[in-house]
């Protein structure tokens, strides 16, 4: 046995938890190695010194508090995993409501948010050519195809000359 091997087994040797064959080997090494023998002796002293640490007693009422907690505490089964705490659930609901409110506010231009969505902008651009064509706007040929209903009033004479003038 060398010093390294002995140092690995030294605690077990001092404990008396070593089989007889290993014990004999360790003793033989300790007899011939002053360094390991000195260390073993110091470990023994460390254990003696550690015995000076006093044992404390649990405070008065310790048992009662344990029993009280055992009696009072609801048992949390596996289902409890899925049940969030009340405060956590409230915070989550509040956060979702706030997010929805902010999202609605930003998508509605009437409430002072940014003007229109991308879809609205696209429609405006798509019809820009028609709006810029003055002829289409003034003649309004499409309207002539409409059959006037019975209750509809006849066109006033003031509107007719304007068309003929064009």
């Amino acid at each position: 046995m060398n010093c390294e091997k002995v140092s690995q087994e030294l605690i077990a040797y001092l404990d008396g938890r070593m089989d007889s064959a290993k014990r004999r080997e360790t003793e033989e090494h300790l007899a011939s190695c002053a360094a390991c023998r000195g260390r073993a002796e110091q470990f023994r002293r460390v254990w003696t010194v550690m015995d000076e640490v006093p044992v404390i007693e649990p405070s008065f009422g310790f048992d009662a508090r344990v029993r009280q907690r055992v009696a009072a505490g609801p048992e949390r089964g596996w289902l409890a995993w899925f049940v969030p705490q009340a405060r956590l659930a409230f915070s989550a609901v509040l956060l979702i409501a706030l997010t929805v409110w902010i999202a609605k506010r930003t998508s509605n231009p009437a409430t002072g948010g940014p003007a229109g969505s991308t879809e609205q902008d696209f429609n405006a651009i798509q019809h820009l050519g028609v709006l810029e064509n003055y002829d289409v706007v003034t003649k309004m040929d499409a309207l002539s195809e409409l059959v006037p209903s019975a209750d509809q009033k006849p066109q006033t004479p003031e509107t007719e000359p304007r068309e003929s003038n064009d």
Partner: protein
Amino acid sequence: MLDVKAGDNASFDSLLLKYRSPLVNFLYRMVRDRATAEDLAQDVFLRVYRARKQYIPSAKFTTWLFRIATNAALNSVRDNRHQRMAVSLDVPAREEPEALPRELPAREMRIDEHLLERDRVEFIQRAIAALPEKQRAAVLLHKYEEMDYAEIAQILDCTEAALKSLLFRAYENLRVQLAPLVNPSALSQRAAERRPS
């Protein structure tokens, strides 16, 4: 524990009576705060009670109990580490009104000058508390709970060989830390050398 599992509450009282002191002491030596140790011990008993129906006697009850306790202590130590690091030197070391501000450990001088019993115990406790968490747990379970290697290895979730190595390093650290108490002759020799002739 099997009786507790079967619904016998009187058996739980017996467990409480038998293990409360070792558990509180183990946790106190781990966290170095009595109130925290008692709170943790209560939590451990509560967990044991609530897990009674799932208890399978594959290991010794003490192994199971101290595994829960060790995990609770390690979590507590890790959670409170930043707070402990922020402790000011101006804050008194103990809660007594006459307590002096903390002193940086000028170990050899202090031990040499006045080795009162309380100082000795405090010194030993500090040396144990200064060990890395896993080494500390291993030493406490080995020295004070007198558990065998297989049990401690199971609690700390390591092999027996790794545990032996861990214990050796831990006691080696303690041997160095506690040198003034373990090797007082060397200390007085050093003090004599420092003294002006």
